[in-house]
């Protein structure tokens, strides 16, 4: 399941579904809203492009690390402290591939997928700066 959505997900159900035949390890990454003296976090995505880029990353990770299953769910909208932002679930035959595949997905997502976060505070808000020079993949010729 590769999605950008407002709703939360049932991580337990996703883990159960990730246990494909041959699975020896499932790795769950759950990025949550941290209490950095904020009231809420607002997330925004370029929806279709974000999902397409996440699907590419999932395919790359599956091929490079022999993953058996990948879920990436990025939430958007207004989220409170402690809520899930990003859930990545991967399964593989062995833990090195599962850990490496999960790590690859989060690092590529942060570089390439068009999503933005605004930290809302009592005084207003501030956009979380992206990494300069990165975003939504390199130009394609």
């Amino acid at each position, binding site marked *: 399941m590769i999605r950008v959505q407002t709703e939360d997900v049932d991580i337990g159900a996703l883990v159960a579904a990730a246990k494909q035949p041959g699975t020896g390890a499932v790795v769950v990454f759950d990025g949550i809203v941290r209490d950095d003296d904020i009231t809420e976090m607002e997330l925004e995505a*370029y929806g279709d492009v974000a999902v397409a880029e996440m699907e590419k990353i999932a395919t790359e990770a599956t091929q490079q690390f022999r993953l058996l299953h990948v879920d990436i769910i990025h939430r958007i909208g207004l989220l409170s402290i402690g809520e899930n932002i990003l859930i990545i679930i991967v399964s593989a035959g062995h833990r090195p591939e599962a850990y490496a595949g999960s790590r690859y997905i989060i690092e590529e997502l942060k570089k390439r997928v068009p999503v933005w976060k605004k930290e809302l505070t009592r005084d207003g808000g501030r956009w979380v700066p992206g990494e300069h020079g990165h975003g939504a993949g390199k130009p394609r010729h």
Partner: protein
Amino acid sequence: MTVKVRFFARFRELLGTDILTEPEKEESLIALVRNIARKNKEGYDALFDEHGRFREFVIVMRNGKRIEHEDAQAIRVADGDEIAVFPPVAGG
């Protein structure tokens, strides 16, 4: 001819989004975005430098494909195009 221009994050706050515009025939992509951005000086200055070039960190897409800044002058927008302009991504 209708083209949709979408701004995201801080650029959206300054300039709006999902802007439907009817560009001049043979209008370049960068000219189209400049014309829309001129309605808000802060928004224009966020996107363009003093020479009217996209600032280095600004990301531009045409129909979901990223384009290089140096091509934005040569590219002519076409009917049905969707142009997206946004700051560096910060998801995860």
